[in-house]
């Protein structure tokens, strides 16, 4: 296999049956992609389908009236409904940040092969959108969350895959927004978490082990607005998976921080399971023990997560529940137009434990359009953006995973993105023949129709021999 052809054109009209038989195919002109070598079958991501879905959504928006949407956004991002974020949420943001990274890593290590990339940057254009509520009052500024995650693996031998992964988050609040260089205002709080490690996956036993370190650093905490914190904390973590059961733990010195057991019972085509049928309706369960201190006493709690396929792996419910005392935590209904989860819509409900009754529930939703995510009051942002609510949060983001055979999928997807399979097997004999045909000169014929050969090279005549031979092999 010397070359890979990837078609971007939907349903390319390949004449499957040509006069010469089914094997002969005519290649219509198409765009070529340079993608890593995968299989003999050239798999082509149907990005055009995704992009058509995106453009359909955009067109839908335009039909409703882009102006109205923009006006709505402008109103919603304004001061009217936005609530300031509490300073305590910033100082307590370390655990959610580290836990989310480990959950992401757990999803990626479900396969343990191929690669994954995730990058995101939240965008809140107004300084009065996510203000800071300190003990002195309400400060204008910007809450932010920048993150990336990369996982890549190498094939050591046919069953062994060695991987390296890095997850990085930089979150906080500052009086100015920035891409890389913060302003470091007097009330800024900027912290980061870096998780990295190595993984080994054995595809024969369908098992993965991974371990690494997790650094949590306090880059800046403004004077007097925040309690004193440790500026640098080192955790270590480990992950082990056998088929669809996995254990994960993170530790600080000799005490655990989180311990998680996950049972991914749902059959996922991406990992060799069924593509449809009753097995895809089994639940994905995980239980996490979080270390929590109330005063000097241990007040550990367990969070149960239950992800359930409701319809054809495009509609999911996700419920989390806290034991022993806090009870219901959050629920989300997620709709992915395609099981590869490149695009998603979700409605979520989160219990905040601040009030009693229905007032305590935070209802919201999010639209994920591959490169853009719009969210309003979504449970994810409440937990990962310092209890941000009452305002639209826009995130420029991208995440995509790839399998060793060159298929693509979104985070946590059960199936790869639809691929177009074209049989363009490379035939060396045909290639050589056609190549030779092109180079061969058409023989000239004389007036009587006989072929005239023009000899090239050096020719020696062996006149004395009984059988006269002609050689052009060099005549040594």
């Amino acid at each position, binding site marked *: 296999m010397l070359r890979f052809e990837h078609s971007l054109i939907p349903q390319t009209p390949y004449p499957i049956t040509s006069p010469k038989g089914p094997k002969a195919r005519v290649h219509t002109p198409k765009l070529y992609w340079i993608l890593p070598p995968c299989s003999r079958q050239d798999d082509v991501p149907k990005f055009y389908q995704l992009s058509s879905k995106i*453009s359909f959504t*955009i067109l839908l928006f335009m039909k409703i009236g882009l102006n109205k949407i923009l006006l709505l956004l402008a109103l919603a991002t304004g001061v009217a409904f936005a609530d300031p974020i509490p300073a305590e949420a910033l100082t307590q943001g370390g655990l959610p940040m580290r836990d989310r990274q480990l959950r992401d890593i757990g999803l990626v290590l479900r396969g343990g092969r191929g690669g994954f990339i995730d990058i995101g940057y939240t*965008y809140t*254009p107004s*300084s009065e959108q996510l*203000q*800071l509520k300190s*003990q*002195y*009052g*309400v*400060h*204008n*500024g*910007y809450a932010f969350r920048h993150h990336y995650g990369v996982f890549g693996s190498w094939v050591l031998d046919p069953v062994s895959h060695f991987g390296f992964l890095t997850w990085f988050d930089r979150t906080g609040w500052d*009086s*100015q*927004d*920035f*891409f890389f260089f913060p*302003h470091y*205002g*007097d*009330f800024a709080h900027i912290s980061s978490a870096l998780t990295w490690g190595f993984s080994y996956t054995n595809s024969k036993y369908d098992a993965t082990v991974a371990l690494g370190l997790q650094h949590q650093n306090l880059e800046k905490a*403004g004077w*007097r607005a925040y309690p004193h914190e440790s500026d640098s904390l080192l955790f270590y973590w480990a992950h082990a998976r056998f088929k669809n059961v996995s254990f994960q733990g993170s530790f600080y010195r000799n005490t655990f921080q989180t311990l998680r057991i996950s049972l991914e019972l749902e059959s996922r085509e991406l990992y060799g399971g069924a593509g449809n049928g009753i097995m895809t309706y089994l639940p994905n369960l995980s239980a996490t023990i979080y270390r929590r201190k109330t005063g000097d006493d241990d007040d550990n709690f367990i969070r149960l997560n239950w992800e359930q396929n409701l319809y054809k792996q495009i509609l999911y419910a996700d419920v989390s529940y806290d034991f022993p005392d806090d009870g219901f935590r959050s629920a989300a209904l997620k709709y992915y137009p395609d099981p590869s989860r490149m695009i998603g819509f979700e409605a979520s409900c989160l219990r905040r434990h601040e009030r009693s009754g229905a007032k305590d529930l935070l209802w919201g939703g999010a639209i994920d359009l591959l490169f853009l995510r719009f969210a309003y009051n979504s449970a994810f942002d409440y937990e990962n953006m310092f209890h941000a609510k009452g305002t639209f949060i826009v995130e*420029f983001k991208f995440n995509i995973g790839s399998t060793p055979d060159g298929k693509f999928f979104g985070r946590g997807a059960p199936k790869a993105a639809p691929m177009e399979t074209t049989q363009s097997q490379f035939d060396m004999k045909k290639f050589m023949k056609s190549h030779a045909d092109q180079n061969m000169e058409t023989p000239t014929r004389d007036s009587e129709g006989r072929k005239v050969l023009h000899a090239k090279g050096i020719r020696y005549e062996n006149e004395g021999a009984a059988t006269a031979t002609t050689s052009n092999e060099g005549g040594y």
Partner: protein
Amino acid sequence: MKYLRLFLCLVALALTACMSHLFVDTTTRLQLENKTDVTILGLDVVSEDGSSVRPWIRDTIEPGEKSRVFEEDWVGTFRVRVRFDKWNAGALVSIAKACGTYSRPNRVYNTLAKQGEPNVFEKNISGCGSEENVHMVYTETDLEFEGGSQYLVVSQDSTGNVAFKFK
């Protein structure tokens, strides 16, 4: 072309995200003018529970005088306290604490919205033991600072209360 325009708009929006400091002030340069007939000893930002105090204007401002300009990172809505040397009008709330029952003083201040009620307090704590004597005449209010150069006029209204006005 339609999408190109949309894309360019998105790029432009994305770029403004790190350029907002060109048109958004992140500090307030505050100058205070004293139009009352008593001396102002300073202006502080205090926490809502009164436990933390950050001085902002550290000048003593005589009646009719202006302070120097002090630049601080206060942009938003904060509780501001202005300390006076004394208060001449009759409208004054006294907070007195006796020795031995020291706790955080109960704040009985009124907001400026309630016109006619006194908003100037005289706190008089006679300490014992390690505590010190505290005597302070002050007013407290929530003010919104938009950033940039701001000029605050402190005056006395007809009811004898303190009035604040940005100019």
